[in-house]
């Protein structure tokens, strides 16, 4: 605005001195400068977006450029057709990259002969599970080597290696999808392309071997039952048996059981242990356990301590030796023989576990994650929620909340004052503008004086505006900060005192509550500070402009106010609403791809041990393609609209 003032002042001088010949030139210059400056100002609002994007891009590029030391997707390395499954570990040393000073394995030597069951026991933290990570090639050993059939495992293709060494972990991850799809995730190579009927046959065989067939048949849709969606539909033992079926479906030569039964209660443990014993027959098996009862039958038991093997032998040999293992056995109350074993092998028990354990261990599925991480989704559904809203109108909410903070009225007064100034500046600008144009029609010193005077007034108006917006900024910020503080505090204070029932509701998971704790007060804060200010500003502006227009000439004034002003304001409102809608719909579409990615990353160990990388990438690409197609369709019609708009603009200018 002060720029306009300067332009008019200088413009009039040049017009007077004859440098510029026509008034039109001055006005053109003034208008183009003002409008140009306004557009530049508007790009400033995008600056934050640009800065955010550039820092995000930097991070993105650094991730893309980071080489993967053990690329599971590479095609390099040996892929022998047959695999005997003889593993030998020689003088293996390893420390985690994040803690290089604490060596976990310190010269481990161990032979895991083909077709036998080898057990690894030892206190927690002795490096048992680390060995699994090295066998699966999640990490590279610091020194020493792991030989498979006489060759270093680093020479083999990583994908091939992981397909032949299958892992059953303590807490199995199942993916969103049907029982069949979950077990079928274990398919490798040619199996993936088999007709569905044969695949189903294979899946059924694997499930029978893993003692899972029986309970699957009892599920509402059998093998087509959706997992994950109805969270908590399977017990821990059932999930573990499914993951065993998934691991053995590709008939791997080597099986790793990493504490496969220790998260289960005794009943489920027995059934799963039976399944493990059955599937591990005539395969090279490495069992890691801290419950010794599960490893007693192993062909060879290696006791680990301080990163190396301290003693090894069969259960009875080790008992005779009376060393660390014998001490551990005593600690766990296991006698020389366990008579109760017979009791375990009772098929009644299998059924029993299935009946009793159903519905107790919730599967962590993506759906629950989603509801926790995406408050937006719950916002949209807010209308249907039985709880969570009182259905008050916006004005009622504002009135209630305004009443609560009498100490902030001083700041609201500032906002009101600022609104008067900023809103009133529009008609003031109009009056000054027309006076200035008028000044050009005057001659000599009178014109010069008038031009100077109104240019000065323009400058004063600019200063007033500056002050007005400064006040608004200060006041809205203060109000915003205070309100965020108060409402956050109030929310957390109320929430911590609620009954347990409140937290049992699915919509009140800790993730969802945290998200709400940050989103709700900030939305209210924006409403009560900035948005109130803006509404005030717009209201004052519209009233003042209308009144000025009508006062200066009621005929044109009324026409313009009702036919002109209303459509400009309505048009602006519409434009913003539609923009927001488009943005929201794009966001919603991307949410589905995000959930797929979250699921994959959250269970990266399962993904990598099942060599699912390629299939997940393929699926992710597919989702993205669908989204892109949709977005492009939207954009194309958007472009068409823009063209149309440009056309009308030209038409208007021609007029």
């Amino acid at each position, binding site marked *: 605005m002060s720029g306009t003032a300067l332009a008019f002042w200088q413009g009039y001088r040049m017009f007077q001195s004859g440098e510029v010949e026509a008034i039109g030139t001055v006005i053109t210059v003034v208008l183009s400068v003002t409008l140009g400056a306004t557009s530049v100002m508007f790009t400033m609002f995008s600056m934050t977006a640009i800065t955010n994007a550039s820092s995000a891009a930097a991070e993105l590029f650094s991730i893309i450029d980071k080489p993967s030391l053990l690329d599971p997707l590479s095609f390099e390395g040996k892929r022998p057709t047959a695999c005997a499954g003889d593993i030998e570990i020689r003088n293996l040393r390893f420390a985690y990259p994040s803690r290089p000073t604490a060596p976990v394995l310190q010269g481990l030597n161990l032979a895991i002969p083909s077709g036998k069951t080898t057990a690894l026991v030892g206190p*927690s933290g002795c490096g048992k599970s680390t060995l699994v990570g090295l066998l699966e090639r999640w990490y590279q050993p610091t020194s020493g080597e792991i030989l498979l059939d006489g060759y270093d495992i680093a020479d083999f293709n990583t994908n091939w290696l992981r397909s032949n060494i299958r892992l059953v972990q303590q807490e199995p991850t199942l993916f969103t999808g049907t029982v069949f799809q979950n077990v079928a995730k274990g398919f490798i190579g040619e199996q993936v392309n088999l007709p569905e009927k044969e695949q189903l046959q294979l899946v059924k065989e694997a499930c029978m071997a893993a003692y899972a067939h029986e309970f699957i048949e009892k599920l509402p849709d059998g093998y087509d039952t959706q997992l994950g969606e109805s969270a908590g539909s399977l*017990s821990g033992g059932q999930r573990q048996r499914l993951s065993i079926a998934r691991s053995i479906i590709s008939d791997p030569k080597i099986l790793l059981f990493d504490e496969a039964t220790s998260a289960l*209660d*005794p009943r489920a443990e027995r059934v799963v242990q039976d399944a493990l014993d059955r599937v591990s027959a005539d395969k090279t098996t490495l069992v890691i356990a801290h*419950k010794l009862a599960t490893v007693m039958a192993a062909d060879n038991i290696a006791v680990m301590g301080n990163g190396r093997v301290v003693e090894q032998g069969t259960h009875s040999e080790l008992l005779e030796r009376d060393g660390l293992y014998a001490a551990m056995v005593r*600690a*766990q109350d296991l006698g020389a023989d*366990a*008579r*109760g074993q017979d*009791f375990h092998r009772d098929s009644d028990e299998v059924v029993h576990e299935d009946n*009793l354990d159903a*519905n*107790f261990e919730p599967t962590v599925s993506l759906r629950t994650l989603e509801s926790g991480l995406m408050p937006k989704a719950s*916002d949209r559904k*807010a209308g249907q929620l039985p*709880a*969570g809203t*009182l*259905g008050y109108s*916006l004005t009622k*909410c*504002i009135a209630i909340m305004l009443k609560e903070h009498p100490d902030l009225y001083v700041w609201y007064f500032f906002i009101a004052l600022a609104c008067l100034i900023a809103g009133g500046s*529009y*008609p003031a600008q*109009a009056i000054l*503008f027309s006076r200035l144009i*008028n000044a050009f029609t005057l001659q000599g010193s009178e014109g010069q004086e008038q031009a100077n005077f109104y240019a000065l007034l323009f400058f004063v108006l600019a200063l007033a505006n500056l002050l007005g917006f400064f006040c608004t900024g200060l006041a809205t910020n203060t109000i915003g900060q205070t309100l965020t503080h108060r409402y956050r505090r*109030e929310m957390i204070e109320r929430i911590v*005192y609620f*009954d*347990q*029932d*409140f937290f049992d509701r699915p919509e009140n998971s800790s993730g969802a509550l945290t998200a709400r704790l940050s989103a*709700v007060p900030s939305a209210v804060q924006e*409403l009560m500070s900035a*948005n109130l200010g803006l509404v005030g500003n*717009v209201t004052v*502006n*519209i009233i003042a402009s209308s009144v*000025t*227009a009508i006062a200066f000439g009621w*005929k*044109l004034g009324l*026409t*313009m106010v009702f036919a002109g002003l209303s*459509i400009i304001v*309505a*048009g*602006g409102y*519409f*434009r*913003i609403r*539609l923009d*927001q809608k488009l943005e929201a719909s794009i966001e919603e579409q991307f949410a589905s791809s995000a959930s797929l990615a979250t699921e994959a990353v959250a269970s990266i160990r399962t993904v990598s041990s099942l060599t699912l990388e390629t299939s997940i990438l393929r699926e992710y690409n597919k989702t993205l393609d669908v989204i892109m197609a949709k977005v492009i369709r939207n954009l194309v019609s958007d472009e068409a*609209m823009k063209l149309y*708009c440009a056309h*009308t*603009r030209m038409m*208007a200018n021609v007029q």
Partner: protein
Amino acid sequence: MLTLGPYALSQSAEFLANALGFWYGSRLLVQGEYTSTQFFVILIAVIFGGQGAAQFFSYTTSLSKAKWSANYILWLRTVKATICETEENRDRGPSRDDVSISLENVEFRYKQREATRVLRGISLDIKPGTYAAFVGPSGCGKSTIVSLLERFYDPTSGCITLNEDDISLMSPALYRRCMSLVQQTPPLYLGSVRENIALGLVYSPSDEEVYEACHQANALEFVSSLPEGLNTPCGSKGLQFSGGQRQRIAVARALIRKPRLLLLDEATSALDTQSERIVQRALDEAASSRTTIAVAHRLSTIRHAHVIYVIGDGRIAEMGTHEELQRLKGRYYAMCLAQSLDQIQ
């Protein structure tokens, strides 16, 4: 396409208004009705004002979101906790020192699963200073009993009394102050070991008290060996400690409150055998001087309890000492066999 029309129209609104203003304004000017000043004032006031107003809409954040948020806060105010301190119960806490607990025909169902009765009429008496244990298959309701004893929930029907006073009439804060709960995987919070141990106290304890609690929890040795002793930060979720160490810090936290009732909910079942031994010793020691109620699925940990309740389908199926239940050759006996505990009698 339905939205496209209004969108396109909204983009051209300004120019439509301009066109109208110039057309009508110029007619009035030509007729001599208006001066050019009048014309400019009106046109510019309306166009500039309108533009300004329209642009402001782009700064307003979604009003529907704001409306929902404001409603949510107002709704939160209407939600009332049923288990909370009120005028009546403010001063009502547990009386005398030795704690006896009795359940009278307690039934319970979770509000989220109204259809399933988790507890179907449980009545029992736990005498002061005794060790009582609940065992049973997962989902039988044994952990629910602990939740009811902590007053996380109130029973659907029936009542729980402490020294013959109904606990639902007491101030939850005063009531809970007399007890400590050790869970399967107790959370440690950001902060030092000392802060984590002193969490449940209303005052800040002396070094001696903290050391004494550590000693009772069998944690003194490992805490002293830490680089900064009690001031060692636990880090996020206490992950830098092993499960056994975390559990012992939690036990110290439970014991520094000098609870008269100790609740153990699968306190050792997430631990490996060595850690379990150490923690179990600490818990047994702590249990000897107070009323203790334990829930466990590993039977070896509760073998010495004064009374063992076997819960099945929300009811008490069997009760008695380890030896009595062994002789009964019922469910408990079967569970013992399954866990290879039969040799030790």
